[in-house]
Each structure stands twice: as structure tokens, then as C-alpha cells.
């Protein structure tokens, strides 16, 4: 019987649970789903990571390429994050060019890299005006069960921390490019931004780390990106208006969660040998 109500009256179904301060998957309102992180799982990529938050799965691979820098910014390399939401991950997506949500996610990833300054584009410079690295950061969602933004962010940071590039030198006189595959240089990733997403249910309750079902019923969402003790981004695109206190509350929880995820990434990185 319960399953039928869940399909026909999902909102009522959820309300019954939330009245008792619990969610249908046995979580409390402020409880996160278990996170599994696997770093360095794609051997053909320069750096990679696979993350599972509950059922949500995102895989990230970093590929590096050489290119000539733009004339007006001769020292800046290129960082190109791209989020893919293929039909494989959910019935909401169709094959073809990236949809609106995928484009917005890709842009958000680029914004977070720029805002947190975790990877400076100057650090990708090999020879000013002549040669720089292009980093293609491909994020593919394999299973879409809500909260893809947080998952993408962890995958992105872990993959960048995992990335090593071969040493490349340019001969000043002849302009020849020499690659030394034996020496490998890790990227200079200076910090570890972590996103925490909350949704607003029924215009009043705040739920952390939403599933797909919860997201579809949400009347608003807030994503807070923290980096150590600083805020990188507060992203609340419309939805139910929230009071200052509610947002402050979210920020506090985001800081705690941010530290936990950072520790998880550090621990996982230590266990990876390259």
C-alpha cells in the first residue's frame, strides 16, 4: 500500500515521514548519504575520480593537451570543465547536445574553480606566449539520484588533486617541444572547495543532500560552497524566499560538512599510490 501512495501522492507520503523528523530512506533531515570515493580509477586519464553519494554516481577524468595561449593572456592556460548528463543516468535527459541543466552545471564548475582559485590558470603555463596546458575536465553522471552538483564538485577536486602532467620544455632558440615522460609533475591545487546542497520542502523544511525524488518536489534549493573558513559561493537561484537565520543555519552546516569531505579526500589521496 505504501508504495502506491508514494507514486500517487508523493508529497503526502513525504509529509507523513517528515512530521516524524525522518525521511523515507531512514535519514534524519540533516543527515548526509554515505559517500564512496575512488581516486585514480581511470588509468588512461591524467587524473580521475569516481564518487558515489548514495546512488548518485559521477565519474571525472582530466585530460591534458598542449596549446598556444591567447595573445592577450600569454601566461594563462585553459581549464575546460564539462558536465555530461547522458540519457543513461536518468529518463529526464535525451541524447543530443547538452541540455540547459548540463550547461548550467558546467558553468558552475568553471565558476567555482575561478572563485576558489584552487587552480590558477597561470600555473598551466609552460612557455609564456608559446605553449600552455589545456585541461579538459570531463564529468559524466552515471546515475542521477539527486545532488549532482555536490558530487561533481568532489569528483572535480579529487581528480585535479590526482592529476600529474609530464614535464614539457621548450627550446628557446629552435622552439622545439620536448616531453620527458619519466618526470611527472603534480598540479598545484591549492585548496579544496566543497559544495553542500539543501532543498526547501513545502516552503518550510530544509533537507540536506536531496535524492532525485526530493529534488523534484522541492520548492527551492541552496548550494553553499566552502573552502576552509571562507565562503566561495552561496548559490540560491530563486525558489521559496528564506530568512537570514535559515541561510545562516545552512552556512554553519556547510562548514562542518566541508571539513568532513576535505578529510575524506585527503585520506583517500594518501591511500592512492602512483
Amino acid at each position, binding site marked *: 500500500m505504501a508504495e502506491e501512495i508514494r507514486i500517487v501522492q508523493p508529497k503526502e507520503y513525504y509529509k507523513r515521514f517528515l512530521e516524524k523528523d525522518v525521511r523515507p530512506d531512514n535519514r534524519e533531515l540533516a543527515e548526509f548519504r554515505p559517500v564512496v570515493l575512488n581516486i585514480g580509477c581511470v588509468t588512461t586519464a591524467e587524473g580521475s575520480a569516481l564518487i558515489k553519494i548514495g546512488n548518485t554516481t559521477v565519474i571525472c577524468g582530466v585530460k591534458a593537451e598542449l596549446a598556444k595561449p591567447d595573445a592577450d593572456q600569454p601566461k594563462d592556460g585553459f581549464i575546460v570543465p564539462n558536465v555530461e548528463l547522458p540519457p543513461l543516468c536518468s529518463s529526464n535527459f535525451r541524447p543530443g547536445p547538452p541540455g*540547459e541543466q548540463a*550547461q*548550467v552545471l*558546467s*558553468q*558552475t564548475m*568553471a*565558476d567555482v574553480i*575561478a*572563485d*576558489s*582559485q584552487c587552480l590558477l590558470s597561470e600555473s598551466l603555463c609552460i612557455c609564456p606566449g608559446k605553449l600552455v596546458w589545456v585541461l579538459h575536465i570531463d564529468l559524466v553522471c552515471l546515475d542521477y539520484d539527486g545532488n549532482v552538483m555536490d558530487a561533481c564538485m568532489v569528483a572535480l577536486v579529487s581528480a585535479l588533486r590526482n592529476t600529474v602532467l609530464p614535464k614539457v620544455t621548450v627550446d628557446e632558440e629552435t622552439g622545439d617541444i620536448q616531453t620527458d615522460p619519466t618526470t611527472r609533475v603534480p598540479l598545484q591545487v591549492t585548496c579544496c572547495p566543497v559544495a553542500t546542497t539543501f532543498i526547501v520542502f513545502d516552503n518550510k523544511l530544509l533537507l540536506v543532500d536531496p535524492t532525485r525524488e526530493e529534488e523534484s518536489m522541492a520548492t*527551492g534549493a*541552496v548550494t553553499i560552497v566552502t*573552502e576552509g*573558513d*571562507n*565562503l*566561495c*559561493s*552561496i*548559490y*540560491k*537561484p*530563486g*525558489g*521559496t*524566499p*528564506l*530568512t*537570514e537565520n535559515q*541561510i545562516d543555519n545552512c*552556512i554553519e552546516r556547510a562548514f562542518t560538512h566541508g571539513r568532513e569531505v576535505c578529510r575524506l579526500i585527503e585520506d583517500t589521496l594518501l591511500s592512492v599510490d602512483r
Partner: protein
Amino acid sequence: MAAFTVVKKEDLEAQQKEESVQSLRCITSELGPLTQPDGSAVFTQGDTTALAAVYGPADVKISKELIDRATVEVIYKPKVGLPRPVDRKLERIIKNTLEAAIMALNHPRSLISIVIQETESLGANLACCVNAACMALLDAAVSMNFMVAAVSAAVTDKGEIILDPVSRVEDEARAVLTFVFDSVDKNIVTVITSGQFSQDEYKKCLYLTKQACDNVFSFYKDSLSKKLLKSA
């Protein structure tokens, strides 16, 4: 019938002179500059200008139809070129903001379409677009739960906070925060930030923008009453 808000030249100069750190730039607007849409508005904040047009409630494509509410669609046109992912994100932010404000449940199976043309982007562009869209919605007499007012603030390297920054300040700033408030309880509808900032700076920006949003709301009221008095 277009209604202009009259801004005296002396007032304008005085305002620009005392444009201290904590005031909004001069706001002007024109309601109904376009004849074909159901409502339109030009909104100018300092040198930043946006033009918004509203069609609706109108027919909706079956693929976009929602059976219990109106579909809200926002199209953002950048000044040059085709919309890039940055513009798509802006579009999504404005759409979600207005969706909260519009009483979509009143018009099931219909479309409310909002077209925003970036005219001059010289600082606080997002805020200007949201305000222009809100004025266009008011001009089209679309029923709304509340009005929205957007205000931007920049945090400089020294930790100073500058309200409604011009583009030069935005470029040099460590962080730029844009807040959108509702007109009923002054709660936060939207927060969009770029750059790094501390919790303390966030609170200061919130406090200042919240105070400044009252100016925008009273501006809406003034310009609308001027227009209605003229047409009466």
C-alpha cells in the same frame, strides 16, 4: 502610452556627486517602450541598462505545458553574439527567481514568457536584469505573490563593501554578491556570489543590500503610480 520618470538634471548631478560608498546609482526607467508585448520596461541603474518584455499568459507548446501551473520561460539575449553557457546560467537564475514571484498556479496550461535584452552591461548586470523583468511583469499586470528587488555589493581587497558597483570596481573586487529580496517580508529569494569572502563580509553585504532594496521598491511604486495617473 509610455510613462517616463522625470529626473531633474540638478538632482542627477547632486546624486552622482554624493554617490558615496553606500548608495545605489541613479535609477531611471521607462514603462511600456514596446508596443507589441503585453508589458515592457527599460531599467537603468547608473550606466547599466536592460530592456525586458513580457508576453503572457499565452499559448504554450504541448511539450512545455504544465497541467497545474503556468510555464515560466526566460530568454536572455546578450548584447553581442549567441548565448553562451554563462548566459544560460543567468537565464536559469532569473527564471527561478521570477517563478517564485509569479502566481503561476493562477494560469494553468499557459505560458508567461519574459525576454530580456542586455543593452549596456557596466556593473551589476544581473541585478539590473531582475529589476527590469520585475517592472515589465508589473507593466503586464501579471499577478504576483510579491515583487522582487535585486541589489549587488562588491567586497574590495581591503574588505570594504561597495553597494551597486560599476564594472571597474567589480573587476577589481575580491567578491561580488547579488541579493534578491521579496517585497513582503524582505526575505532572501536569490543569492548569487562570485569570488571568496568571509561569513562576516556576507552578513555586512546582506545588511546593506537589504536596506538599499527599499529604494528599489519605492521606485517601482513611484513609476507605476505615475504611469497609472497619466493613463487615468
